[in-house]
């Protein structure tokens, strides 16, 4: 995301405030103990602090679900809207206020099921914001129903003998959308990688889609078990223009060099294998952003009145 405009405080005046982690702290998080959402919240707070984002210029928009409680746990502006509809609300905020830092938090039911239409179109609009998919492979808030990303044969309350369908792959789907400009995948149990990915997403000018693999200790505890316990299941996509954390080399030995400019490579790597790939699949800042395409002509209020009067007179009789 980028920073233009100025806050009410900083306009013409030097804003001497510095923000600590605590300044971003909202209500006490009420997710289950062991829920991956806690570490995502921590990483986000760290990002806000490191980037010194002004709380008043930052907006978190969410849908409905456990993960969508996110905005309440931050002391920024926030909007906790409808199940599946976080992206259009965020688009509306940006249409009016392109200068704000907008983050969108969605669950997998939220983004990939009920909100799937908006997901495709928001990707194509490429409005400058960060979209986080907190993917626990299950409907959490409503207590354990199959989601589009639930792995094949994994049981749930709605499909007790296991799901019938192959899981939808959100990264692959996003990479298939025209005008997709930033697609990354990370895991909440690798905080350093999570943080770096959030940072890259934040600094990207355009719609940054990040799928965060997230453990749900209640309904999908076993899904990411292997990936958590066996680092070799994870393959880090590394590149100077993507994410490379040498400190992680010791643990995550499987690496593949992938240039985020390479869309064909990205699509190949997004295909499902036994490997879980983390890193930046694709990044392209040259793609058009909706808010730039739709920037309004700059007119003063007086000019607008004059123009409107002329418009009304045009077909006067």
């Amino acid at each position, binding site marked *: 995301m980028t920073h233009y405009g100025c806050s009410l405080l900083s306009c013409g005046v030097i804003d001497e405030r510095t923000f600590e982690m605590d300044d971003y702290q909202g209500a006490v998080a009420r997710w289950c103990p062991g829920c991956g959402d806690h570490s995502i919240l921590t990483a986000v707070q760290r990002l806000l602090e490191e980037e010194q984002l002004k709380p008043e210029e930052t907006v978190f928009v969410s849908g409905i679900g456990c993960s969508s409680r996110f905005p309440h746990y931050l002391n920024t*502006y926030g909007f906790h809207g*409808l199940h599946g509809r976080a992206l259009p*609300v965020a688009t*509306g905020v940006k*249409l009016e*206020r392109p200068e704000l830092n907008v983050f969108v938090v969605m669950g997998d039911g939220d983004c990939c099921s009920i909100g799937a239409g*908006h997901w495709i179109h928001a990707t194509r609009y490429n409005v400058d914001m960060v979209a986080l998919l907190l993917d626990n492979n299950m409907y959490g808030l409503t207590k354990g129903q199959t989601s589009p990303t639930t792995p094949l044969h994994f049981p749930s309350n709605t499909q007790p003998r296991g799901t019938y369908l192959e899981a939808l792959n959100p990264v692959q789907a996003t990479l298939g959308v025209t005008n997709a400009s930033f697609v990354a995948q990370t895991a909440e149990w690798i905080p350093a990688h999570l943080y770096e990915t959030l940072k890259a997403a934040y600094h990207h000018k355009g719609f940054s889609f990040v799928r965060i693999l997230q453990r749900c200790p209640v309904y999908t505890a076993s899904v990411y078990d292997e990936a958590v316990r066996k680092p070799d299941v994870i393959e880090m996509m590394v590149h100077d223009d993507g994410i490379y954390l040498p400190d992680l080399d010791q643990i995550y030995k499987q690496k593949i060099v992938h240039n985020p400019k390479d869309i064909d490579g990205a699509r190949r790597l997004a295909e499902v294998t036994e490997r879980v790939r983390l890193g930046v699949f694709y990044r392209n800042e040259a793609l058009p952003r909706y808010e730039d395409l739709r920037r309004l002509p700059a007119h003063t209020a007086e000019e*607008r009145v004059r123009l409107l009067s002329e418009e009304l007179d045009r*077909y006067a009789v």
Partner: protein
Amino acid sequence: MSPSSRAAKRGNGDGDAVSARGRGLRPREIRDATVIRFAGDSGDGIQLTGSQFAMESALAGSDIATLPDYPAEIRAPAGTTYGVSAFQVHFGSTDIKTAGDELDVLVAFNPAALKVNVQDLRIGGMVIADESSFTDRNLRKADYESSPLDDDTLAPYQLIKLDITRLTEEAVKAFGVSAKEARRSRNLWALGLMLWMYGRDRKATVEWLSQKFAKQPDVKNANIAALNAGHAFGETAEMPSDVVGYTIAPADVAPGLYRTVTGTEATAWGLLAGVRAAGLGRLVFGSYPITPASPLLHSMARLADYGVVTFQAEDEIAAICSAIGASYGGALGVTSSSGAGVALKTEALGLAVGAEIPLVIVNAQRAGPSTGMPTKTEQADLLQALHGRHGDAPLAVIAANSPSDCFEVAMEAVRLATRYMTPVIMLSDAYLANAAEPWAIPDMNELPVFPVEFRGDPEGFHPFLRNSETLARPWVRPGTPGLEHRLGGLERSHETGNISYDPENHARMTEMRAAKIAGIANDIPLQAVEIGREGSALAVVGWGSTYGPIYQGVRRARDEGSDVSHIHLRYLSPFPRNLGDLLKSFDRILVPEMNAGQLVHLLRSEYILPAEGLNKVRGQPFKIAEIVEAIRTRLGE
């Protein structure tokens, strides 16, 4: 406001100059008002012909009302009855408030157009038919066994058969356009003839053609030649001897600068004027195309210069959600739709009620249920507007009664939305969206203002603090330090603004939301009697686009001596404070509606009144005669 080249003062006798010219050899007869309908295939340019005729009539000083009627299919198979497109113009020197009950003149470009429209022609009215299109093939398509131009089908009318196709071809021969192009100028030939018949000028039409076909000089010249040839045909008395021209005196309207306006255009400008009156920088208009609401999105899309951001969203849900996001961001979010599209917005409307977000929703109602009759008018969404949400979710509902009234009502929607931090539904309908009438252009600098105050003071702030007078919560623009807050659909504590599941609190918040909307009644005008008097024998109570026919019907009945009054509601939620007492003063109440009985249901349950419905669900406006007839039977006359 600076008059531009096409602007002219009305009501100052300009029309005399027009009607004095172009007199044929035979003297002109005087008429007060006339109703003409042009009808043909959807590819015949009927809508353009009709609107140009209306424009020339308005320029000549007539009061006008127009009613376009077009098929749902863009290009239905040529010559079929379901592909017929029509445009009706009612114009005259009197106060014109409807598109007219009966036609005086029907211009029919083919048998199908004649077939579906002739029943609206008054006995003795005139049919002008293009003979050459009454071929065997076209007659069959329209289900005529023999040509109505040759048998006695049209005996009750005055029939004028003209070979308009051939006459047009002759007129445009010199311009080297193809036979097909030539045929396409038929509508202009007919327009020229009708302009002659009513002593109207051709200048604005010539100017418009010159602009439209600036890049195709041959087409431009051919079209102008066709227009002139039709006019000359009347002028040089090639018409049958019993056909004369008419003179219609200019209407007696207040002097001022006027333009013709459709309900759609008036809504667009009203919203914009409202946003300016509220002192807001921008209006964010999120919408998804649907007939008959799409033209509003088209109109708004042309207003980027005036601070309008349009967002053609991926669906209606995204459209309203983007408007909600924009309002949260500090603009006014507006969305519009019709029928099925409004249904899709209902979940988000509930969110806007719960989060107390200012928002305007324009519903151009169409005939339902489901896809229904997309291009036909109805007012059957009143109960949906009032109650069509989950939970107790009150909001403000107001309705426009004529195309030009849409301006004021749209402005009022913005005022209520921003002052009360609530979604406001503005009801219009397919008729209002498309119909046009003259409108006195207001001076933008003299319109009322109702500036919004964004909260900036962090002291004691929470997002559900209420203004003691309006009960509205504060509006805060993100970017304001110290006022960071979260909004959403979860219930809030009235004391802290935090999420709360406390039973007492929910009861209290439910009451508060209702009281806020009910309180709007203290901030709107008392209900007036449009014509007639309080306490008369019968009140005819309407809302929305039935205004014209009810007004004229009541006036006619009163002229005949009936003790009847007209009351027309703009505010449907809440009702004006005095409405119950006012209605109780009448012996009987009749409620005409283009639905199966919705306002009547509300009035009966709200005020325990024996109100009675008069319901029409034919996809068409009421006729004046239907109202007069209903009044007569109620009053036993």
